[in-house]
């Protein structure tokens, strides 16, 4: 546990709030009518998955929680949990749906992901900047329009829907930004 200030905040960081570990999912600066500046933060309780907002005074002191990451393989999911396996120890861990958040739409069974660990407990999944997924469903493209920038919606093997250029077809492997859900590029296998 290290003491940091709001100016050290980074998206994805873990901090202590009211004696519980929370992840900072978003933050932005707020300037009310007078005097000082504030940081409005979106926090997620890693135990309950409960998400809410808290506004800190700018420069306020906060305890950062140190975590390390361990690579694990994603196995499967049920109504409330996602299951991962540590390939070296074969131990299985689960993370609740609300800790995975929207990234659940981009998980591919069998793929490796970085899991945040604290006190030997998994507390979150580190979103990679880019995921590579196959297009499982796509309408026929109209005549290869690469210039216009027009888009169509396709479905990915993980279940997510994404807006892509018209030339993308079923079976193509594409890269997507899991944070924004935006198409990045087509990938050669």
């Amino acid at each position: 546990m290290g003491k940091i200030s709001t100016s050290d905040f980074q998206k994805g960081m873990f901090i202590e709030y009211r004696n519980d570990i929370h992840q900072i999912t978003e933050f932005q600066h707020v300037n009310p009518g007078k005097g000082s500046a504030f940081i409005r933060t979106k926090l997620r309780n890693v135990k309950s998955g409960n998400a809410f907002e808290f506004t800190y005074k700018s420069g306020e002191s906060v305890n950062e929680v140190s975590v390390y990451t361990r690579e694990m393989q994603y196995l499967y999911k049920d109504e409330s949990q996602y299951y991962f396996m540590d390939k070296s120890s074969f131990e299985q861990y689960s993370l609740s749906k609300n800790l995975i958040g929207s990234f659940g739409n981009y998980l591919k069974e069998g793929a490796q992901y970085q899991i945040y660990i604290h006190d030997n407990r998994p507390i979150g999944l580190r979103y990679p900047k880019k995921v590579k997924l196959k297009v499982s469903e796509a309408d026929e493209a109209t005549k290869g329009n690469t210039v216009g920038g027009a888009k169509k919606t396709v479905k990915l093997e993980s279940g997510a829907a994404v807006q892509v250029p018209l030339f993308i077809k079923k079976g193509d492997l594409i890269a997507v930004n899991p944070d924004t859900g935006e198409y990045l590029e087509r990938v050669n296998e």
Partner: protein
Amino acid sequence: MSTWKKWPHDEKIRQTYYIREELNFLIRKFFRNKKFHEVETPILLPALIPESYYEYFKTHLLDRNLQKKTLFLSASPESSLKKLLTAGFGNCFEITKSFRNTEIGSNIHNPEFTMLEWYMVNADYKNSMDLLKNLFQYLIVNLRKKKLLPHFKGNLLPYNNLEIDMSRWEKISIRKAFNKYCGIDFNSLVDKNANSDNDIFSVSLIKTIARKKGYLVDRKNTWEEIFNQIYLNEIEPNLGIDHPTIIYDFPKPLAALAKLKSDNKLFAQRFELYIGNLELADCYTELDNWQEQQIRFDNDQYLRKKCKKYEITPDSEYIAALKKGLPDSSGVALGIDRTVMLFAGVEKIQDTLFFPLDY
């Protein structure tokens, strides 16, 4: 991708722009119908009304010998417009760009933004509440006529998962809001028997309340900083949710350039308007007492020094204008970009601007 590059393929960007275009036209028509004159005042100013919270953009005027003179980009047309009022100009309005430095890293701020500011003479903030409501009703009726509000149904304006009843405007005082949303009796935050403002708005009283609620407080915090933190966490999230909210009568430390209430000097004749949880407008009954204004200038200069904000030249011409006499008047500052956000159903101010500043 920058907003302007999205123009060819993004219907939403186009709709948002057409709403802004129509809004500019309707605002001018509304004020022309009410016989307000439109004015243009400078963005480049040699002196400012010192406000402790703004960071200003600073630049230099070079004379023919390349001698430098500091100029600032105005954060609001207020001082210029009120000078015109003291010269007997009468009801007026301006649509202009205002500049606030450091206001980056936010979905609802752009350091350069568009402001509508108007002043009505022989009026106070209560008259402004009525005029502001009329303006919004006028905008809605006419935007609907042009089919620019396709999702508006009955009296409900949809915005960001909310359905805002535009026919029912809520008015709540800060004092009542503290009671309703924080469970705090405002009297517990002030010592009415004290003499100076610093003692009346006692930082130790408000710290006690804040600590009880689990906020972290330290020696550097001011009464107003702690007040703001409680306000931002517990009151603001409730404003303008189901209907527009006018929150009024701000405590004296947040009076800015508003006159104090005649029946209660602890509060100022100031209100803010929230719609869709967006803070859209700020209004005062304008302070006309030049001695009181000078005291506030000095206090803000002191706070600016304390917070290590850079030096600005205080606007002595403004004080001189107040000495001449400001008619009883009330002004409103309305953020046009945020109003566009509201009507276009857009959650980031950057999506209402072709060239937003972002880093």
